[in-house]
């Protein structure tokens, strides 16, 4: 009945271990919720329709903004998912009290959500390229900047998720955060329309910084070299910092205080 044989020595948890497997888990989970995928583009579509009705000439700018906004709102999905798994399912304990790494859990979740929602974002991106006649360089810049915005917002979303004890509280804050930073600043409309005094602020907020850089590339905005540097360096620096903090925070919050 009992055994005295000790188990073989097992490798300690590896950094980023389990990322791929948990990414696939999250893809399966999200893919079973096809309605959420279908509704993920509602806000962007509504804004695009408004822009098209009010000024069809700005639809190229708005399409680029829609791609950036879509990448940004994936962070809200990470926030909701991480909090839901932890608060409602307590399934984070199942995964984290085991050989899977905490950062693998975070990145797998964020990556899985990205993959599942990539198709509608790619559709918007394709439209932006075709309608806006984007060059290869600008298209690659769109891809890279949208990727940075995604990494920033996914990291912020995961960090925020650890502060809540009740899902109901999250709805309000998450919606406020992602709409204030994604809709109000010049993401869907030209950077030049934004009040001059607030423009430095827009250049340090990742979604509007990315949008401003792209608008500058297609000639829809005029940025000084200082503004370009502020937007580019700020976006990269903020993303790297928040990502590193998210990795640290994911590891730290495996264990309660």
């Amino acid at each position, binding site marked *: 009945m009992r055994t005295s044989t000790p188990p073989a020595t097992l490798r300690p948890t590896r950094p980023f271990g389990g990322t791929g497997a948990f990414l696939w888990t999250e893809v399966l989970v999200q893919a079973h919720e096809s309605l959420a995928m279908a509704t993920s583009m509602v806000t962007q579509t509504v804004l695009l329709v408004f822009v098209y009705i009010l000024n069809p000439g700005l639809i190229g700018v708005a399409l680029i903004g829609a791609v950036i906004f879509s990448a940004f709102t994936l962070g809200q999905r990470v926030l909701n998912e991480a909090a839901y798994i932890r608060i409602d399912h307590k399934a984070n304990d*199942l995964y*984290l009290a085991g050989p899977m790494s905490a950062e693998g859990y975070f990145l797998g979740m964020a990556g899985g959500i990205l993959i599942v929602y990539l198709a509608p974002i790619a559709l918007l991106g394709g439209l932006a390229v075709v309608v806006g006649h984007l060059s290869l360089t600008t298209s690659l810049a769109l891809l890279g900047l949208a990727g940075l915005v995604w990494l920033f917002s996914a990291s912020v979303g995961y960090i925020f998720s650890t502060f809540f004890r009740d899902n109901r509280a999250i709805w309000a804050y998450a919606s406020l955060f992602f709409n204030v930073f994604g809709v109000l600043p010049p993401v869907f409309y030209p950077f030049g329309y934004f009040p001059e005094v607030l423009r430095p602020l827009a250049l340090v907020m990742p979604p509007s910084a990315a949008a401003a850089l792209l608008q500058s590339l297609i000639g829809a905005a005029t940025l000084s070299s200082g503004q370009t540097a502020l937007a580019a360096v700020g976006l990269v620096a903020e993303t790297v910092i928040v990502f590193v903090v998210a990795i640290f925070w994911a590891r730290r919050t495996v264990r309660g205080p």
Partner: protein
Amino acid sequence: MSSEPLWSENLRKVYSSKGAPPVDALAGVSMSVHPGERVALLGRNGAGKTTFLRIASTLLRPTSGSIRVFGYDVAEHPERARPYIAVVPQEGKPFFHLAPREMIYTYLRARGLSRETSKTRTEEAIERMGLTEFANRLCITLSGGQRQRTMVATVIATEAPLLFLDEPTIGMDPFARREVWASLRALTAKGSTILLTTHYLDEAEALSHRLYIVERGRVIVSGTSDDLKRSVGGTLKVSLPEGARHVDSFQSFGSTVTDGSSLTIIVAPERLGELMDLTIRRQLTATVGPVTLEEAFLRVVGRKIDED
């Protein structure tokens, strides 16, 4: 340094929050679990069972004391201990938008098991836990008991050297509970070690080699269920549904417990005849049965396990 599957010494956990006095959730717990054992932690709500399990499973920091999993310091090197453990969290639920087969398989993959091993173990766990019929249905469509079986199957399939199960059979029907018991026995026969908490005393008695009873953050007694039952001072339990008002007359026979109008007496077999004579003289009805772990718990803790 102990290389037991689980070993703790004077483990303490104090919860502090603003505006509230600190709470000693664990007030110095020392225990050890030997290889291949199934050990139950018993205690009322708030006794400290889940806190202990969460610390042991690297999900909570202790305030002081030592705790080791296979010799690895859980507080200092959780990354060394984690590969050896698997946990069924209290009130944990599987992903609602995965089917049990997907849930188990992807979890094993996330733990680093190969595709082939994960697939084999998934099918074994599904069959062993009676999940075959709904293995491909999304968990959101399953009953609470079926979801819990999915959680237990997921963890059992890991065959981890040390399993922590926090109320593993809660919400299950008696048939499903017995399937879980059989699976856990099979798992320890293969070499795993199990620490579980449960509110079901029959489960603790049927399943565990040893028990620890925890009250107010302390281990107040440990041993086998037979040890605990012997400690109540007799092997028979006499229940008198209307006997509470006669408690003084029966106290000389052994320990007595009143609950409303009823009286329960723990008595040695040789004094049963004498006690029954008195019962008849008082015109009371009585039922006689063996002492169970419930009486032992009541005797040791002073309250029933489901009493807050």
